[in-house]
């Protein structure tokens, strides 16, 4: 320890911390004050569109975790796939969004909401109707700019915290 600068270094550091006493705190109080998430938030659950889905299984193929499970049959009348069962194990899902990107028919979306904790492992496995979009489960704008436009603007800390000097 050398005090070549007579302790000015310490004093200057103390001034910085003292200044912060009078600055606005950065934090926000979560349950009451909610910040808007990004429009492209990759939330907890996948949202499936049963009308657009053709049962091509591209999403299941592109999933690096193997979390999507689809069973289909061929409908001989229309020569199309019928989706018997689509099952997403949210516990395996890492929210990488590759399925959304892969889907050629825009039939699968990431969810926008995040408060989706479950108490049991079994509840994480979601199938068929549970995957449909509903007011409770809005779709996020990830890879879907037309949905993103409708969602609220993201709150940015850069705009919130502006310090005067």
């Amino acid at each position, binding site marked *: 320890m050398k005090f070549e600068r007579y302790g000015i270094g310490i004093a200057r*550091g103390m001034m910085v*911390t003292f200044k912060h006493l009078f600055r606005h705190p950065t934090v926000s109080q979560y349950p009451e004050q909610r910040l808007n998430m990004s429009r492209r*938030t990759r939330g907890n659950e996948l949202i499936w569109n049963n009308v657009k889905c053709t049962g091509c299984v591209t999403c299941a193929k592109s999933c690096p975790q193997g979390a999507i499970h689809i069973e289909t049959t061929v409908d001989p009348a229309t020569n199309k796939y019928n989706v018997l069962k689509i099952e997403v194990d949210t516990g395996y899902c890492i929210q*990488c969004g590759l399925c959304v990107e892969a889907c050629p028919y825009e039939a699968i979306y990431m969810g926008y909401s995040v408060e989706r904790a479950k108490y049991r492992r079994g509840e994480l496995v979601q199938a068929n109707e549970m995957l449909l979009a509903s007011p409770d489960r809005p779709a996020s704008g990830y890879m879907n700019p037309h949905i993103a436009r409708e969602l609220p*603007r993201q709150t940015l800390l850069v705009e919130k915290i*502006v310090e005067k000097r």
Partner: protein
Amino acid sequence: MTIKTEPFVINFGPAHPSTHGVFRMRVVLDGEVVLDLEPVYGYLHRGIEKLAEQRTYTGIIPLTDRLDYLAAMSNNLAHCIAVEKLAGIKVPERAEYLRVILAELQRLCSHLIAVGAFLNDSGAFMTPILYMLREREKILDLFEMLSGQRLTYNDMRPGGVSQDAPEEFLPALHKFVDQMPRYLDEYDQLLAKNEILLARSKGVGILSKELAINSSASGPVLRASGVKWDIRKAEPYSIYDRFEFEIPTGTAGDCYDRYLVRMLEMRQSVRIIEQAMKQFPSGEYRSRVPKLIRPPVGEVYSRIEAPKGELAFYIVSDSSIAPYRYHIRGTSLINLTALRDMIVGWKVADLIVIFGSIDICMGEVDR
């Protein structure tokens, strides 16, 4: 009467607040002095290299997020550049600029954590790291805006980036870049000349130039030892040859120099981002690439300058959709090579400071 003393063995980690994850050091102590040190790796081993051999080239990107999770963008970039080299994919201009901006923001992000954690280890109780987390938060906001996630971005793809930057991205980035140098000044004011910090870190944990080169250290650790080696300059990848920036180097190779090099590098990163913003072109953000990339048979070793140092991917392809062999040159692991030589002979308190100044990320050490 003589008092009989004997050295005792103490375990630092795997659960210790300053090992930055599950790192374990088996330390032989004589009172406070470290006599010997043996690092024990592998508590976070997930077999990423092996997992990657069963995934498509796009499917590996989420895995690279989980290497050095404090610099996921850089990992994505390194992987994508390797795949592009292997498969001969061209990247459009706008994507290149976006990639450079993201990589430099990620460098800022990682260095903020590195410096903050280092100061926290040296005992400044939580204050510096919280200040720096505040700046990191602003960067994470930008990343979130772009990719939708805050930690594992999975944003870059071979041949570009996954999504174009939204229209509110550039104004927000502008605002951030305007603010950042002032905050960096403030951090310098906070502790850079603090006498106690100087006493704790100047001359402590010296990594000599020769040892740094011999142990193949890279990044700020190498540069603090006085070696002017930065892959952005030495072997420019992406479009780094278009930007003006300097490579800050230290002289002594001690903890303080490593700290200072990081602080200076942050300023250079801001400079690069400013230039990239000025030249930011419009156009395609992603070239047309097949969903399943099948590179020709061959191998590639491609490296970039990640925040922590040289990050390289070695990919052997057998023309299938998954790599035949996927090797990662983890920066943190190789920077830890000289750990014993740096620490032995110092005190317990220095051990923590030296270890903190190397700036490792366990996800990258154990993979």
